[in-house]
Structures are given as C-alpha cells and as structure tokens.
C-alpha cells in the first residue's frame, strides 16, 4: 500500500525517519548513527534503490535519518535464464519450469536451448521501506538493549536501547505505513521535554529540523557540539579565563542535551590546594564539567605553567527562566561536596608515608600464580636496581631506582587512587614530594606506568626509565613464565601494551641489553614489527635481521634494520637483492660436492672471487664495530661482480669441476650477504 505521492510528476522524494526513545546513552549515539546509515543503505541497495544522499542525526531522545532523492519505485528487472537443451530429457525441462515458475509455452527456444524470460516488476519504494525499517529496528546492534512495558510479558517483545516511544516515517509528504513492537509509524513527534508541550506534526524531511528547533530541539548533533564547544570557550573568556579543551566532553554534553546551554560557575578557591589533576578528574568524570585556567600571557596556549582557576562550566539542557543562576548554584554545591571528598582523601593520604602504605600491598593479589603485589614490587625493585647498577640505564642511581620501585605501587592503597584509579602513579608522585623524597624518586613513581599508549610520552629521566622498564619487564616475564600469553584478540593482562612500552623505552633511550629470550623475544619481535610499521620500517626487514638468530639487543637490531632499509632502497641494494635471489634459487635446486678448482676461471668468476675475498672481512669488521652503513657499503661492492658473473658465466657447466666451483662461489656469496641479514626474508 502506498499513498498518493505529493507532487504529481515527481519520480523521487525525500525520506524522513525518526526513532524517538527515552534517553539514549551519550556514548552510544555516534555508533548508533553510523549503524543506522549503514543498515539503511544496505536495505536500499538490496532492493536496488539508490538515494541521493543520506544524513543521520541524534539527540538523547531520537535517532533521525534523511535520505534525499529516493526514487519512488525500484526498477523493473528483466532477466533471461538459460535452460536445458531442447534435446535434454523431460526431467531437465520440468526442473527448469519449477525453478522459474513458468509453463512450457512461456519459454523461447534459441539454437536448440530453452530460455526463460523473467520479468520482475518495479516495487513502490514505500513498500520497500515499510518492510526494511521494521527489519532494521528489530535487528539494530545496540551494545546493550532492553525490553519494556506490557509487551515484555513475552520474551519475544521488541528490544531497544531504552523504551522506543514513537516513529516518524515520511516518504515525500506521506507516511510509510508500518508497525513495529506495537508502535505505528506516523508523522508526529515531541519537542523538548520541558520547553514544549504536545505533539509536533511533521510534513516531511524539509520542515523536520526547523519545527523541532522551534520546539527547543537541535536535532543535528554537530550543531549542538558546536554550541557546547564555542559556548564553553565564550563562558571562560568572558570570565577572563581560558578553557581547558576536551573534545570528549563536548561530544558527551551534546549527547546529553537537546538544547545545550553552557554555564560558568565558581567553586571555593580553598579547593585549589588539591592537585589540579584531581580537580579536573572530579569535574570531568563525575560531573561532566569543563574546567578553565588563568591565562598566562608569556606562555603558549597549552602546556606547563598554567594555573587552574576556581571555575567550572556545566552544560544545561534548558534555557532557564532565571538565566541559569539556580542551575549554577546547584551544580556548585554538588562540585563542592565532591571536592571536599577529594580534599579529605588528599589530606588523609598524606598522614601515612608511602613506605607504610606499601606494606599493605602484601594483602593484594597481583595474580594467583605470580603472588602478591608486594612480591611483584620486590622483584621490580631488584630489577630496577640491577638495570641501574649494570649501567643498562646510564646515569641511574641504583639506590634511588630501588627506592622508587619499592614505593611505586604504594599509592594503589591510598583513598584517592581507590576513588580515581586513573590517578595511579600521579598521586604517588605527589605524596612522595609531600614527604620530601628526592625529585628523581617522586618523578619515577609518577611516571613509571609510562608510556601507556602510542601517543604517550616516553620517560627519559634515568631513575624513571629504570623503574618503568623493570615494572613492564617483570610483568612480561611473569606472565610468559606461567604461560599466560596473549592470543588473538585476547590480551587480558595488556602484555602487548607492556611490550610496546618496553620497546619504546629501549629505543628512545638507546638502552643496550639482552631484553629477552625464547618466546618472549619472539613476542618482542612481533610487537617491534607492529610498532615500527608506524615509523615506516618494513616488517620483512625486521624479519630478515631476526632470522639471523641471537639478536636480543633491540637497539642494535634496529640500527641494522635502518641501514638495511636504506640499502635496499638504493640501485645497488635492489640489484644485489635480485642477484641474491637468483643465486639462492639456483642453490636451492642444486646439489654438488666440492671439487678442486683445477681449471682457469673465467674473468667474471675470478672477479667475484676477488670481490668476496675483499668484502667478507670488511663486512665482518663493520659488523664488529656495529657500523651497519659500512657493512652495507661492503655488500654493495659485490653488486657489480655478481651481476657480471650471472651475465658471463654458466653455472651449470657440463664440466663437473666448473659447476661445483661456481656453486661454491654462489654459496660464499650467499653466506657473505647473510652476515648482514637473511635476504630470503626480504620481499620484492
């Protein structure tokens, strides 16, 4: 059933869909928009329809989609199917008739073969949509969904992220008729929960956003995000402050409001004794507030030296009748209660020295097979001290490394970290400074979890490096020892991240030591390939160097890989690789016994022999000095002789002695190249 299409001769129309529900969690809205568009396009495509454009919007209470210029009907399809030969047995023809649903007189015959012509008439787009939209709703991939209401007496009732309360489906000006979960598609919606009362009747895609706007709903999330972003900036600058930008908060606040109104409030300056990170976290995580700093004219916009202001910016969902004064007052009170808790924790924690706190780690299990956190701390302290004493981390004082490691996890039992786990490390650093511990120790406690992600800073302070490295290595060694290695997408102990952290600590600080052996070394090799891909280093070259075996010094390994990558990018390198592959292919196929060289070698043969005699020691010397560029240069000297050799000399000579000696020569060439890397692993 399709209604009359408004606009007499129009062949296409715009489609509007609104799925109105109770508040959709802010964090789910972006994915929901993408899913709605994807599923809609998929349904259209399978019906053979192509929209001009598709626009999706979300608010806390609705998902909306507008498809422009949708053809009003699908194309009629004419399809010719080839059947059996006319001479084929009767069963074959019967089967074909069954398949096509035709009778024998509807078939045509050409060149002794039956053909069926199937006509699929076009379908009204409204009919297509009336089936497609309920199907999308029923199978929508919400991360969590629920049942509700009277219908939920049956477990087959509709599921949605929160109760679904209304649907608009308009093609052109007409309702696309369907019903899903007891909700009948129509043209009515609701405006802002408090600013508008009664239903709003929508004519079509064109008046949807404007009618909602008049009812205090900004349906375009991007517009709301802009209002939050710019409004927060404006509120801060009007107060003579600078906003601490937070795009995650912008999106979240836009996802919590249909009519966002950023408002600035002040909190008691006395709370500024609490570390700024704590204030920011309290404001952001618990209350979704922005914070602001005092502008500092001599400093760049971001970075150190800015001081937190006693201000917060909340985002209201109404244009309040008093301009927002009551809202700001209420929010200030809530923040004050939160900050008093934070200040209480801050003051309380300072009463217990970190060394005392650390004793409580004996009560916390790190892993049932790896003992308590206290036991882990003891291992990390030994390792950190060793890394410092052995000079693996140059400039690190062994005693300070041990002290920092012993205290690094103590903040896990503080009240503050109990409340805000993401402040681990940071709080320990603060408490260490309050106790008057050396800066190197406080910094190491603060930063020893670093680097936590790809973009995170890598510590460079020696004591910090020693503790950070020891902590991660201990974790990796421990879990590998009890065979808890990451598999596929499962990495419950974040070992990949730990390995990546180790790699970055080692490479950024040029630390020279044997990082691991066996499985763990192979794991590092894999992680190194992933990490170096970002830096443009070819994974096959890393393989080519690891394949030599025995390389557990990541700094030396990367130096060699870098030299190799530069080399294989040169003309000499490419040709040498080609020569290597040719030699390797021959050697793979042939077997021979070494025979005395009782013949006069051809000039190219003699030249290669001489070149190898020269290059071999040079490569050895260069490798001994870890001068990989020189090693590559020495290899490059083989390029012309090997090319000339293949040009002028027949390896598989009829004479057994010649053949054997030439194969020997190629074998020596391969061996010389293998001193630098296993070229057989190199692609291209």
């Amino acid at each position, binding site marked *: 059933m399709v209604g009359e299409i408004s606009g007499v001769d129009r062949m296409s129309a715009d489609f509007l869909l609104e799925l109105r529900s109770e508040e959709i969690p802010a964090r789910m809205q972006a994915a929901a928009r993408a899913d709605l568009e994807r599923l809609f396009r998929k349904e259209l495509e399978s019906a053979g329809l192509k929209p001009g454009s598709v626009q999706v919007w979300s608010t806390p209470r609705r998902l909306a989609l507008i498809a422009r210029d949708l053809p009003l009907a699908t194309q009629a399809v004419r399809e010719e199917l080839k059947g059996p030969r006319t001479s084929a047995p009767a069963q074959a023809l019967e089967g074909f008739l069954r398949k096509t649903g035709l009778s024998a007189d509807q078939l045509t015959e050409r060149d002794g073969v039956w053909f069926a012509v199937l006509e699929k008439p076009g379908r009204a787009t409204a009919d297509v949509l009336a089936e497609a939209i309920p199907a999308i709703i029923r199978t929508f991939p919400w991360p969590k969904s629920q*049942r509700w*209401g009277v*219908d*939920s007496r049956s477990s087959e009732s509709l599921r949605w992220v929160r109760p679904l*309360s209304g649907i608009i489906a308009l093609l052109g000006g007409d309702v696309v008729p369907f019903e899903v979960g007891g909700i009948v598609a129509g043209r009515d919606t609701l405006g802002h929960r408090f600013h508008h009362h009664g239903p709003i009747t929508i004519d079509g895609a064109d008046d949807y956003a404007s009618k909602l706007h008049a009812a205090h709903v900004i349906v375009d999330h991007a517009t709301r995000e802009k209002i939050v972003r710019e409004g927060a900036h404006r509120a801060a600058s009007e107060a003579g402050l600078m906003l601490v930008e937070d795009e995650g908060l912008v999106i979240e606040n836009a996802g919590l409001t249909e009519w966002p109104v950023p408002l600035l409030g002040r909190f008691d300056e006395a709370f500024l004794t609490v570390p700024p990170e704590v204030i920011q976290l309290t404001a952001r995580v618990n209350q979704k507030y922005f914070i602001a700093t005092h502008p500092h004219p001599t400093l760049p916009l971001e970075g150190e030296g800015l001081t937190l202001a006693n201000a917060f910016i909340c985002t209201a969902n*109404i244009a309040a009748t008093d301009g927002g004064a009551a*809202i700001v007052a209420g929010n200030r009170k809530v923040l004050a209660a939160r900050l008093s808790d934070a200040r209480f924790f801050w003051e309380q924690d300072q009463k217990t020295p970190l060394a005392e706190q650390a004793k409580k780690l004996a009560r916390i299990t790190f892993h049932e097979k790896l003992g308590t956190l206290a036991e882990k701390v003891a291992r990390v302290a030994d390792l950190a001290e060793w890394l410092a004493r052995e000079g693996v981390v140059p400039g690190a004082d062994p005693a300070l490394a041990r002290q920092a490691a012993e205290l690094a996890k103590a903040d896990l039992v503080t009240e503050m970290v109990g409340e805000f786990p993401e402040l681990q490390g940071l709080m320990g650093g603060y408490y260490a400074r309050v106790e008057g511990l050396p800066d190197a120790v406080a910094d190491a406690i603060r930063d020893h979890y670093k680097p936590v992600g790809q973009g995170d800073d890598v510590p460079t302070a020696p004591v910090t490096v020693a503790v950070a490295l020891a902590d991660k290595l201990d974790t990796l060694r421990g879990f590998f020892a009890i065979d808890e290695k990451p598999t596929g997408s499962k990495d419950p102990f974040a070992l990949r991240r730990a390995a990546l952290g180790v790699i970055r600590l080692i490479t950024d600080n040029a630390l020279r030591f044997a990082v691991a052996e066996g499985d763990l070394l192979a794991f590092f090799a894999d992680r190194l390939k992933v990490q170096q891909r970002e830096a443009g280093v070819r994974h096959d070259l890393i393989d080519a160097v690891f394949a030599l075996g025995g390389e557990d010094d990541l700094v030396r390994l990367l130096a060699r890989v870098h030299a190799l990558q530069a080399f294989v990018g040169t003309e000499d390198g490419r040709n040498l690789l080609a020569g290597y592959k040719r030699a390797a292919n021959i050697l793979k196929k042939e077997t021979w016994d070494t025979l005395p060289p009782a013949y006069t070698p051809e000039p190219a043969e003699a030249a290669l022999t001489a070149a190898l005699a020269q290059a071999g020691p040079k490569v050895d010397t260069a490798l001994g000095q870890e001068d990989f560029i020189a090693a590559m240069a020495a290899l490059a000297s083989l390029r012309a002789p090997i090319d000339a050799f293949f040009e002028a000399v027949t390896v598989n000579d009829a004479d057994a002695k010649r053949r054997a000696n030439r194969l020997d020569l190629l074998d020596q060439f391969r061996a010389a190249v293998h001193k630098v890397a296993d070229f057989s692993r190199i692609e291209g």
Partner: protein
Amino acid sequence: MAEPTQSPSFQDMILRLHAYWSAQGCLILQPYDMRVGAGTFHTATTLRSLGPESWNAAYVQPSRRPTDGRYGENPNRLQHYYQYQVIMKPSPADFQALYLGSLFAIGIDPLLHDIRFVEDDWESPTLGAWGLGWEVWCDGMEVSQFTYFQQMGGFDCKPVAGELTYGLERLAMYIQGVDSLYDLRFNDAGVSYGDVFLENERQMSKWNFEVADTDTLFKGFVAAEAECHRAIAAEVPIAAYEQAIEASHLFNLLQARGVISVQERASYMGRVRDLARGSCEAYMAKFKDEWSAKFPGWTA
C-alpha cells in the same frame, strides 16, 4: 506554619510523594520490618517483580549501610537513611513523565532546574538482578535511580518492572538548600533531622564499627543461612527470602567490623547470592503454574 513558597519539610516531601504515587494507582505500603541495605530488598520489589501479574507500589524503606556510618560527623553520609521506592509492573509507557511529575510535586521546577537522565545501569549480583536505566540529575546532583528491571533472581522479568529509587535525604537537602543533612527541617515546627537522628548515627556508628559482637554476627549468619535452606525446602519462599536479607545484613555488619578478609569477602557474597537466588527460585516454582494458567502463553 510554613510560608506558601517555602520548600516542603522532610516529612511533607514524603507525604507529597505518597499522595502523588497514590494518585497514579500505586499501593502505598509501609517499610519492610527488617534491616535491609536498600529499598529494592523489600519483597514488594524483589519478589513482586517476578511473575506476570501487574503490581504498582510505593513505600519508604529505611536502609542501613553500616560501612557508611561517620559517627554523625559527615554532613553527607549516614549508616541509616531513607529511600523512597516506586515499583510499577509492567513499566507504564509514560513512566518517565510520571516520575517528572513527582519531582514537580515536591517543588522542583523543570524550567528553573536542569533535570537530566544520565546512563547508569543497575546490577545486583546478590539478587541475581540487573536492569537498564539512568541516574537522574537535578543541577548535576543525582536525585534518583531509574531502572527497567530485566532480570531478578536470575529470571527474565516478564513483564519488565520500572523501579524508581529516591535518596530522600539528599533530595531534601537539595530542595531545602541546606549543606548538612542534620540541618534538614524534618517538619515545619522546628524539629531538624539532626534532632531525630544525630544521636542514632553516633551510637550506631560506634556499635557497627567497634562494639557489635563478631562471634554473634558470624553465628547469626550461619543460622540465617541454615534457616533459609530449611524454608526453601519447606516451600515457604517468603520466609526463606527474609533469612537471605538477614544474612545479607549480618554480612554487611561483619564488613563494618573489618573481620572479613578480601578473599573471604567473595565467598560470603557468593553465599548470600545463593540464598537470595534460591529464595527467588522457590518463589517462582511455587507460583509459576498458577501464573501460566492466569496468563496463557506466559512461561518463566
């Protein structure tokens, strides 16, 4: 007498909520006469959310959380406080609007104050229950928990019940604009919340944390556990459930006394969960045939 524009006292706020929810068709029940940690534990919510029958009720439930006691010295924390609980099964289509109406009834103007539904799903491993919903914010403060029950006692809620929990002291502090809950006007004749409860908080905090005889508590836990199993076997699931609640509270007291280690904690919680679930299962078993008969097609 109060000025007409003055915010309602603590007791008036409760009376207004009673009047409001009564008008929406809810039974106005009285508190369950046992020590519980939250309004959800009242049988009017847990057991009545099982099964297909309609059920609409509202009540105040005194709730006890021994570890939250602060000897009357913290302006925001109590070991004994009140929750206002509404349960409507099946959840009505306009449940959100009904809730907002109740806020209006106690004096919150939604064009002056910013009311928001912020994602907050609810889960009670002890009750084998979970639901989706929100915490409701008023000017950034959580004033209620709003939940659509999906499971209770490990059973799918068929139909789904809508549950509202108002933290009455916090809501009253907000409405009355006071910074300490002890300063709340309990009535409009000069009696404060502190006059009524401050001494209780002092004494009960001391008892919870320092005095309560742990040996008796441990024995009580074991006794309640045994009695719960006996009641399940005797097919009196409501009695069994009461013992589960009793065990749960004794466990909370033991926690406050600091005599349960981290390792033991999980094991005790598991025992309480088994009691609560077992009671729900027994309740379900007792009534499911009757329910299926009344609601053809309904299955547990």
